[in-house]
């Protein structure tokens, strides 16, 4: 019996140009690219950083085996796409010889005579090819990439130009996925569309006519179920054929913009083609769209040309024309047209969007509705604040009363009786007793409740819907996309929000977002507002403060957006389905956020309370250090702001942590704050605390992210703004008769 042939793929000698192909897997995140990659390449993947970036790309090699090539299944959709007579290879119509099952089963060699015959065969030419598979990072868009992953994908397509693109598409979410497909068709690279998760789509009641999609896109479409390996060999074979038969590549049907945009775009393309630039191997059509959308990175490509001024003027003219015609930002106009085309394609090929629409989808549609969405979001925000307020009020009425009536007097008695030293008495009483009391009444009812609500909003999937709605709303003010996320993060804590601005692609966006983020009231500032004004003055005052702050954010955002040159980039989101939050993950998330208030804030409050007690009692209780500081700060604090002089110390403490301000008020008042301040004073105090200088941790990250100059400008301007507004509020309220 003959042993296995050592050299199986002799035809490669005869067609040396066909011995190697590079296939790039491109798709949006979570569509199954990695599953396909692993199925094809096994465990032999090489993980490497793309040059100059930290983005990892996976590379693996696969040789098309006898079985891969002669798998009996043949996708009918690509039958029309065959080589013509002009091509190098002729199609042999003879049927595949299946009378030798033994050989097929073993998959060894194909026999001398059979080879001679099969060399003419279409399939035969790809047998034994070395296919280098590259798994590119998930990208929502490549027209105006904003994340590092998207930039790497675009750079790879431009500079490394694969022989074939396999565009992996999620069949359960066709419109969003087709947005990328439409852009990929612009590249002059053979492409195969992999329609993945068709089983899941079918279970959801979605039937997709892949042949029709193939016809509409002009490239082969292979339905697959990657996790089960269904049709993955067929996909590989089709991809290899697409690459091998460059002369007979299918005719991709490119998307043409409607309403006269197309003509303008072609005018620009034509002008760019005359300039003979674009050394980056970027299709002119993509470049034109990037220029119109003010995508910063393509500017260098244009500016290097001597005729750049003229081209940029043309870009500006076309942009103005389109924006004037549609009365909207060009990013929105072009994005909307692409979206409409993706929806049109989906409607053409998708038969039935599920037999019945689940209730959660109906609710989701209402929550993200253009008309009802924002009022509902506003109600949710007000409801959340009311829940926090109610928690604070209940806590104050129960635990607070108990603490005032029992713990405080007992602790005071024990300390004065058993501790002889006055210094230690002051430290213990102000640090431990009043410190813990202050922490308990701010951290537990307000901050913990806020984090529970935040976790619930996240786990239900509503947080993503708020971001979606805000994106649409803020877009009108010129603030959109990624800049929204740090603002929402800032509601929890400003530190991660400032760090979150890193994700913004331009310095301009980062500067704007950085400025606005520090104005967003964090959970601690919300506690200050609700714990002072809300609890002891009026909840309406608390809402008024929030309205003022958000008004400033919106106004300042619009002003900065129009002052600083450049453009903002959108964010592609995947709205998660609505679901019931589970108790354990929700509580775990709450604790992971809240523990900072236990490990960091509590010791700080105890130390701060002790130091404040010492400042109140020494050198003498009547003429203490705090009194001296108060005298110094009196013109501003008492004269302009109308506050008790001692609150100056609270403002200084607030730089450490915002909640320290109200906690020190509790210590200064030696009981409820309303015995120390009037409602007007509480309002002014909470307004200033919400706006003035960010806390020390935020200043540290601002310094790290933006350097000292911007940090200094930001800190100074917020202090000036806060004290100015505080004074104005004080005089207005005095004029209105508030004591």
């Amino acid at each position, binding site marked *: 019996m003959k042993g296995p042939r050592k050299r199986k793929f002799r035809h490669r000698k005869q067609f040396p140009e066909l011995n190697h192909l590079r296939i790039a897997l491109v798709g949006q*995140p*979570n569509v199954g690219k990695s599953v396909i990659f692993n199925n094809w390449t096994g465990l032999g993947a090489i993980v490497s950083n793309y040059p100059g970036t930290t983005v990892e790309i996976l590379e693996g090699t696969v040789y098309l085996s006898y079985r891969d090539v002669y798998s009996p299944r043949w996708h009918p959709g690509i039958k029309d796409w065959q080589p013509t007579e002009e091509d190098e290879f002729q199609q042999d119509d003879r049927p595949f010889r299946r009378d030798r099952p033994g050989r097929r089963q073993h998959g060894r060699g194909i026999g001398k005579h059979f080879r001679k015959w099969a060399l003419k065969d279409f399939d035969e030419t790809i047998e034994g090819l070395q296919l280098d598979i590259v798994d590119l990072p998930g990208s929502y868009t490549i027209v105006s990439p904003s*994340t*590092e*992953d998207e930039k790497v994908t675009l750079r790879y397509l431009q500079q490394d130009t694969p022989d074939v693109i396999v565009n992996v598409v999620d069949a359960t979410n066709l419109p969003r996925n087709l947005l990328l497909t439409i852009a990929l068709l612009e590249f002059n690279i053979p492409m195969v569309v992999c329609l993945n998760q068709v089983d899941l789509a079918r279970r959801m009641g979605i039937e997709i006519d892949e042949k029709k999609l193939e016809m509409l896109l002009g490239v082969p479409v292979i339905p697959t179920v990657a996790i089960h390996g269904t049709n993955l060999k067929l996909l590989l074979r089709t991809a290899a054929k697409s690459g091998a038969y460059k002369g007979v590549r299918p005719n991709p049907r490119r998307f043409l913009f409607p309403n006269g945009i197309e003509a303008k775009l072609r005018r620009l393309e034509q002008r760019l083609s005359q300039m003979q630039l674009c050394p980056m191997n970027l299709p002119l059509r993509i470049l034109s769209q990037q220029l119109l959308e003010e995508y910063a990175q393509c500017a260098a490509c244009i500016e290097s040309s001597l005729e750049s001024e003229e081209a940029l003027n043309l870009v500006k003219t076309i942009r103005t024309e389109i924006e004037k015609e549609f009365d909207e930002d060009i990013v929105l106009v072009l994005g909307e047209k692409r979206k409409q085309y993706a929806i049109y394609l989906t409607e053409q090929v998708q038969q039935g969007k599920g037999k019945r629409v689940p209730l959660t989808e109906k609710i989701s549609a209402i929550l993200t509705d253009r008309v009802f969405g924002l009022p509902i979001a506003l109600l949710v925000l007000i409801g959340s604040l009311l829940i926090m307020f109610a928690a604070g009020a209940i806590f104050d009425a129960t635990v607070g009363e108990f603490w005032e009536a029992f713990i405080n007097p007992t602790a005071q008695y024990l300390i004065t009786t058993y501790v002889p030293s006055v210094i230690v008495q002051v430290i213990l009483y102000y640090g431990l007793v009043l410190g813990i009391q202050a922490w308990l009444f701010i951290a537990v009812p307000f901050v913990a409740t806020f984090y529970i609500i935040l*976790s619930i909003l*996240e*786990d239900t*999937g509503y*947080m*993503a819907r708020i*971001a979606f709605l805000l994106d649409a709303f803020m877009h009108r003010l010129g603030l959109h996309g*990624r800049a929204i*996320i*740090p603002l*929402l*993060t800032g509601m*929890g804590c400003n*530190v*991660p*929000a400032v*760090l*979150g*601005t*890193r*994700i*913004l692609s331009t310095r301009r966006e980062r500067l704007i977002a950085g400025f606005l983020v520090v104005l967003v009231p964090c959970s601690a500032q919300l506690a200050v507002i609700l714990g002072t004004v809300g609890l002891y003055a009026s909840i309406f005052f608390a809402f008024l403060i929030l309205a003022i702050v958000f008004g400033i954010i919106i106004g300042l955002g619009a002003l900065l957006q129009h002052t600083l040159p450049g453009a903002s980039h959108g*964010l*592609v*989101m*995947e*709205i*998660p389905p609505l679901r019931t939050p589970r108790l*354990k*993950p929700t509580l*775990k*998330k709450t604790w*992971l*956020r809240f*523990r*900072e208030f236990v490990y960091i804030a509590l010791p700080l409050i105890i130390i701060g309370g002790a130091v404040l007690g010492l400042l109140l009692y020494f050198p003498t209780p009547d003429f203490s250090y705090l009194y001296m500081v108060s005298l110094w700060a009196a013109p501003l604090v008492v004269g302009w702001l109308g506050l008790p002089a001692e609150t100056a110390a609270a403002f200084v403490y607030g730089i450490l942590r915002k909640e320290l301000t109200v906690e020190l008020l509790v210590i200064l008042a030696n009981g409820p704050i309303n015995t120390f301040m009037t409602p007007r004073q509480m309002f002014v105090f909470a307004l200033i605390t919400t706006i003035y200088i960010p806390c020390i*941790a935020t200043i*540290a*990250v601002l310094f*790290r*992210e933006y350097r000292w100059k911007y940090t200094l400008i930001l800190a100074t301007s917020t202090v000036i703004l806060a004290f100015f507004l505080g004074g104005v509020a004080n005089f207005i309220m005095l004029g209105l008769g508030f004591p």
Partner: protein
Amino acid sequence: MTTYQCPMCGRKFEKAQATGCAGCMMARACGAIACPNCGYEFPAVPEEA
């Protein structure tokens, strides 16, 4: 492999892909994780939990 889903933009990712820890004083000790797509920071509770 432990995967996380961003509650803000819906992106699923692995811990190695998370960004935002570099330069933070609490780096990798705060129990939080930042989404590589939108930058939103949230407690690192895996999707399966």
